[in-house]
């Protein structure tokens, strides 16, 4: 009985054509995954047979195979337009994977090697009096230095950068604002060593001040300022003009409009921008090398005497060239990455918390 009813169903009465003006044969939905698995298997196979040692070569072979096989298969089955579509899709995926692999590899390597030494002692002790050939010691002095230097740099750069961006977006018209935009762009391209040399020439050689964390902070501020200006500018431009007009039409003066309407609306993005700028300067080594000098002992006063910093610590330990200091270098690198990541998470948290709320 069931067979009879099925036979009489309209679908069977008029058989659906597999091709037609609106219908083309399609690869099954699992095809991309299947081709992916096949390419990886083939890539490993070819790598083994040809005796290639590097896994990166295996991966590249698999990636190339994936793109080629997808394109060939879709051309024969689905036609050339779909083939081009799939080619673009597979290229995007392959590029994404190629971009992500080094990142994960870097994090994996740093965590694996750095976690060997990263413990309570490492973050609470300096290198003062430690024999560098032996394990022990820590990066506390470098952590203190980094915190103080980027703290001071942010104190200098964030307000100046913010106010510059506010000027450019809210007030600036004509030649002055064009000139400022131009010089901010130029500043973005300044190599960190040049910023360091500038402060070295001005502060230490000309004004005859000593090495200090503050000198380093000044050069970091030079590097940080254009990033803050740029990101804040973009965020302020995103604030709809209607909000400014609404506020002005209520008889609110312009400066209050900026302070109470424009900035609160953009504060999430501005915070993210400042935090990213902080993360960027936290990894600078060159200005520290020139201006803070580096030190093995704890110096909590950033205005007087040599300090260390995490990127400098990594460089210094690596240069010593023995097993124990290699371990310490990786530990310092891990600490630095963790610090920057924490800053990023903090920025995202603030951005989400401060973002204009919608909802009923």
């Amino acid at each position, binding site marked *: 009985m069931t067979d009879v009813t099925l036979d009489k169903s309209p679908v069977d009465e008029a058989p659906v054509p597999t091709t037609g003006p609106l219908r083309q044969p399609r690869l099954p939905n699992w095809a991309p995954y299947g081709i992916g698995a096949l390419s990886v298997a083939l890539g490993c196979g070819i790598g083994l047979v040809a005796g290639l040692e590097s896994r990166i070569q295996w991966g590249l072979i698999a990636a190339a195979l994936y793109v080629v096989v997808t394109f060939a298969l879709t051309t024969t089955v689905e036609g050339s337009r779909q083939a081009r579509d799939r080619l673009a899709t597979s290229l995007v995926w392959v590029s994404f994977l190629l971009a992500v692999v080094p990142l994960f590899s870097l994090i994996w390597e740093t965590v694996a090697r750095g976690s060997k030494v990263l413990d309570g002692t490492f973050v609470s002790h300096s290198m003062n009096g430690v024999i560098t050939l032996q394990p022990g010691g820590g990066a506390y002095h470098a952590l203190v230095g980094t915190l103080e230097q980027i703290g001071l740099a942010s104190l200098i750069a964030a307000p100046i950068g913010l106010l510059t961006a506010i000027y450019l977006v809210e007030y600036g018209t004509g030649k002055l604002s064009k000139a400022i935009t131009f010089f901010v762009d130029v500043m973005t391209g300044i190599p960190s060593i040049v910023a360091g040399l500038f402060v070295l020439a001005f502060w230490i050689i000309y004004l005859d001040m000593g090495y200090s964390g503050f000198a380093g902070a000044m050069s970091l501020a030079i590097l940080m300022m254009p990033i803050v200006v740029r990101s804040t500018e973009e965020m302020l431009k995103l604030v709809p003009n209607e909000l400014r*007009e609404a506020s*002005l*039409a209520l008889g*609110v003066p312009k400066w209050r409009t900026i302070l109470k*309407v424009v900035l609160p*609306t953009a504060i999430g993005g501005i915070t993210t921008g400042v935090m990213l700028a902080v993360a960027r300067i936290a990894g600078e080594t060159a200005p520290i090398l020139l201006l803070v000098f580096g030190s093995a002992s704890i110096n909590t006063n950033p205005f007087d005497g040599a300090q260390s910093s995490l990127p400098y610590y990594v460089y210094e330990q690596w240069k010593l060239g023995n097993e124990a200091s290699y371990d310490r270098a990786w530990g310092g690198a891990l600490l630095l990455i963790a610090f920057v990541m924490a800053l990023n998470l903090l920025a995202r948290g603030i951005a989400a918390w401060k973002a204009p*709320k919608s909802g009923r």
Partner: protein
Amino acid sequence: MAKRIDVSGLAAYYGTHLAIDDISMSIEPRSVTAFIGPSGCGKSTFLRTLNRMHEVTPGGRVEGKVLLDDEDLYGPGVDPVSVRRTIGMVFQRPNPFPTMSIYDNVAAGLKLNGNFKKAELDGIVEKSLKGANLWNEVKDRLNKPGSGLSGGQQQRLCIARAIAVEPQVLLMDEPCSALDPISTLAIEDLIGELKSQYTIVIVTHNMQQAARVSDRTAFFNLAAVGQPGKLIEIDDTERIFSNPTVQATEDYISGRFG
């Protein structure tokens, strides 16, 4: 508390481009005046010159006189900020402040200007929301963000925000163009109620709306693209819609051009 506006020989520029030229008219207190005319004829520009919002646009410049009860808005030493406190404005698209709650949106004009007493604020917010016919809909969620309201409610919130600072004149730039017929009706009713206290000027593209809500209607037109917009005529709404003196007005209203 409503004031009359007398405009004479007003011209407004965007940079060197003359947008409206030689406009003279009187706007009566405690009445609704509607501006109609084809797109680009300078209705909104003219409206914005009435509370000095035109000069907020980069390059915006005004010549001529706008008298608010004998005081020239463009006279020397006149602070645009105090002009805007006296002459409020509602915009085409609802624009509540996204960072503020419904309560804070209504109180924004007072809070941002810093001249309020905390004890009076609750009363003013309630009065303004009632004035904008929104109180019953939002009284239980005053602390929720204003952007969570529907479009029509947001527009009434903006009206409440504008009347909370107790202006003498209320300018409305196509306040219903983004709204559905029911919200439009709510706002038209509101305009009818508000005119007992305020001088209201409304720009609209909706001829029926102009006929429904306004006491007087002004027709603007421009000779050609690139030419400045001009005031063609202003008269009692009834007369404009039944027996206008200028042929162009009749053509526009009956839909024969534009």
